[in-house]
């Protein structure tokens, strides 16, 4: 099984990296881009011995406790089946 975890700054928190990139691409002539927010992306390879439910619970905890900081960030977990 493989999983993806996306972490990004909460909408209320200023994202200087995203802002810098947004300004840059505007200068470069890309039109129609309203906003850019930068986040983090983790690719996780899971052992086959885990059940789907176990994996979900564990990944959610991992994302909440380690990979993101709830003061400033939010996260999303995706679990994909590999045959």
């Amino acid at each position, binding site marked *: 099984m493989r999983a993806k975890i996306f972490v990004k700054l909460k909408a209320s*928190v200023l994202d*200087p990296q995203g802002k810098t990139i947004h300004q840059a691409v505007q200068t470069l002539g890309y039109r129609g881009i309203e906003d850019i927010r930068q986040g983090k992306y983790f690719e996780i390879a899971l052992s086959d011995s885990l059940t789907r439910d176990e994996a979900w619970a564990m990944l959610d905890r991992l994302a909440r406790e*380690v990979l993101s900081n709830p*003061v*400033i960030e939010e996260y999303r977990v995706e679990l994909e089946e590999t045959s």
Partner: protein
Amino acid sequence: MKFGVVVFPGSNCDHDAYHVISKVIGQPVDFIWHQATSLEGYDAVILPGGFSYGDYLRAGAIARFSPIMRAVTSFAATGGLVLGICNGFQILCESGLLPGALLPNRTMKFVCQFVHVRVEATDTPFTHLYERGQILSLPIAHGEGNYYCDAETLERLRRENRILLRYCDEQGRVTEEANPNGSLDNIAGICNRQRNVFGLMPHPERAAEEALGGADGRILFHSMAMALAELAQD
């Protein structure tokens, strides 16, 4: 009286903190390896600056899971003095001992320079030898020092007089230009409700000797030592 300086993998101001305690203010001090599980026998603990675990996930994010941090949490709960400098401040925030978080600097660049900070409260073991409103010259050196918390937390920090240092200009005015990293309300350092846990981005240990360009930071360590000495007498 005994100080401990915690060494995380990637700490790099551990020797500097050790030097200040042992040589500048002349107090007993040990290095404490991050795998240690007890702080018995210590009266004050310093979480030093550096890049614990490379700061790879977020500054301080992995260090908070080191075994020593459980000990630091209970040490703090029983009134022990905890000082987090720079990366140490980031670790304290990540571990929830202090509220808020430290974001990348507004400029997106690492910044190392002397700045001015104003002492906002002196009713703590860390700042009681300063005067309220005193302007200090201290160096900063960080890429993620942009203090952030939600509005409610900020309100509480203000109400409870827990903002101990604010970035200011040479005359002590708290202005936008004097804010080196974009910190909310020019916050350079805050303490917990019990006032025994203090985190700050500037490096007092780098300004503790005249030869290094100033000694304003030395008083902070003297304050801690004196507070501990008074405690011991009681």
